[in-house]
């Protein structure tokens, strides 16, 4: 109201003064922005060198027929490699496996992570011990953990091998996938829990008290008050984990090495690029993975409005 009234009939003098002030401010702002760019220039340069160059080089390679076994046949073929890969059954099987692993592990991790976060958040006695214990799996190198899972499931010697009757679980497709997912979940749930715990800390105590007074049960407090307030943190956690899970490699490499159609897209790219020495096809797959990851990130950021916790509208003061 008041701003509208004062802005209604400004004298020419004050307008000029205002404009002048505005110009001065934006001049200062521009200087500041320039300094900002200068200050992050070194970091930006390093980033460009270590990420942009390899990415662009992969893209360049993906447009060529380039197999190190037949180096003489190197030739620019445009989108030919893409056609080859996208019309190939192996690619789509790997893609399906990757999606399956991503969806299942992230969903399970979200639920378990939330429970774990809640426990870590609420424990009053031995808080440090509980948190440390919960984070141990995340502290172990993935490959090491994967090897220990492999030994655990090895017939005769492994301590888990006999759990589901006789047979070698890592030699069948379904059980192999289940074990891969189990290893993934075991390993990264603590990370999820850690991100979600940051979200839990965002929920003010008074809000939960108010909900109790308003007649909410424990479950209603969780679903109607805590989850919405935590939404930004949950989305960030989901985004991180989805991108991570989509690039699953270590566990598969160690546990099955892709046998019985358990390869993920990363596994397939590795096999073509490093084992098969087919730089063209391998690079094409890498670029496709890159595109898929970008699409996932885009969906999260644009469609779900994922942002850093606290920067969302509700979190603003």
């Amino acid at each position, binding site marked *: 109201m008041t701003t509208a009234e004062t802005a209604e009939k400004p004298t020419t003098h004050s307008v000029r003064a205002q404009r002048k002030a505005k110009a001065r401010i934006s001049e200062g702002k521009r200087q500041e922005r320039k300094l900002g760019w200068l200050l992050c220039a070194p970091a930006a340069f390093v980033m460009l060198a270590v990420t942009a160059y390899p990415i662009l080089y992969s893209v360049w390679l993906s447009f060529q027929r380039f197999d190190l076994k037949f180096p003489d046949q190197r030739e620019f073929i445009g989108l030919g490699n893409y056609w080859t890969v996208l019309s190939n059954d192996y690619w789509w099987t790997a893609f399906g496996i990757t999606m399956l692993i991503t969806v299942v592990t992230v969903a399970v991790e979200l639920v378990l992570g939330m429970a774990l976060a809640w426990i870590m958040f609420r424990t009053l006695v031995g808080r440090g011990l509980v948190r440390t214990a919960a984070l141990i799996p995340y502290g172990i190198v993935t490959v090491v953990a994967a090897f220990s899972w492999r030994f655990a499931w090895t017939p005769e010697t492994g301590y888990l091998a006999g759990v589901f009757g006789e047979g070698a679980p890592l030699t069948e497709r379904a059980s192999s996938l289940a074990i891969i997912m189990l290893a993934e979940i075991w390993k990264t749930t603590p990370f999820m829990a850690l991100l979600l715990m940051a979200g839990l800390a965002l929920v003010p105590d008074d809000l939960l008290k*108010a909900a109790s007074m308003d007649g909410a049960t424990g479950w209603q407090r969780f679903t109607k008050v805590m989850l919405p307030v935590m939404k930004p943190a949950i989305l960030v956690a989901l985004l991180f984990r989805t991108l991570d899970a989509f690039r699953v490699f270590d566990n598969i490499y160690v546990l099955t090495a892709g046998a019985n159609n358990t390869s993920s897209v990363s596994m397939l790219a590795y096999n073509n690029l490093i084992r098969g020495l087919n730089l063209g096809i391998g690079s094409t797959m890498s670029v496709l993975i890159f595109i898929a990851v970008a699409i996932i990130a885009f969906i999260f950021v644009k469609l779900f409005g994922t942002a850093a916790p606290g920067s969302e509208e509700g979190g603003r003061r």
Partner: protein
Amino acid sequence: MADIVLDKVTKAFPDGTLAVQEFNLEIADGEFVILVGPSGCGKSTTLNMIAGLEDISSGELRIDGQRVNDKAPRDRDIAMVFQSYALYPNMTVRENMAFPLKLAKLSKEEIDRKVDEAAKVLELTALLDRKPANLSGGQRQRVAMGRAIVRSPKAFLMDEPLSNLDAKLRVQMRTVVSRLQKRLGTTTVYVTHDQTEAMTLGDRVVIMRAGAIQQVGEPQELYDNPRNLFVAGFIGSPSMNFLPATVSEGRLRTSLGDFPLGDRMRQQVSDSGGDLIVGIRPEHFEDASLIEDSIRQRGAEFEATADLVESMGSDKYVYFTVEGEKASAAELEELAADAGGGDLPSGGSNLVCRFSAESRVKEGDTARVWVNLDKIHLFDPSDGRNVTLHEGKSSGVVS
């Protein structure tokens, strides 16, 4: 609507803090009770126990004659307003106010009707579709009130609901709260440490200190007949002046001069013996030249040099420094700590007097000051007790 009875309610936190001790209070149906006291005295804890947000360690809490110690907050049918407002950030104003009704499974039409009605009372109708983030402090406060009133609970609990507002808005909202409570007639317990709110809002005021009740009464009664030093110093602004005093040969000897004691006073004081603290409110001083002869003999006069004169228009505050020792007691130290200001660096005690506007006293003048001996209080410094109380009423020095 309901009456609330706290019967020897005690709260001991797991770490051993005794936040509330043997709290006894009967709140009548429809009554507006204020809990007031310095920071950390257990006001919020008491309120949370009534709400059910905090367990009761011992004692009994009865609402409508029914023991509710073990009932969950949602089964007590009580609404609460928080200092932080505690609005759900993801919901609009309408959804915030509808939340308790939705949980109570009311029909959509009924919810809309009640929310619209409450919004009208609180002038929130135009804001119903906004999110809390886009509201001003005062508007948020009103939404919090609205969420409390929509479901017509048995009682309202408010924990410093106005202390996040600026001074002007606070005065405005005070009248809103007061009117709302009168109109709805709902039993209300209101926590504050603003004594203006305490004096103006409530039917009765409970003054707390370190988890214990000091005195319960109507605001005026607390002001006129404080039961101890703490209450005397806590209520009133500027607060009561305290000076050390002794009694000998039937006279009260203070650094302001020797005053005669009445018969009854002499009896009350003789059995306390020893050192005393005399308490005099600022308005019980007057410029001696303005005193009519008819009332002059009810008091005594002394001379002092005015350090500072503040003219408020309607009256004048005159500050004196009185030579000699300061009154000292545990209660007074606690009050000074709560007021935040440490003692001013001066040799004697500071005396604040309220003179009528006609007074001609200026800074640096030596003024003749008259003090109304009928209205002064004597306290025992060892336990802070008001020794001049007689059947709950205060008696002045001359009677």
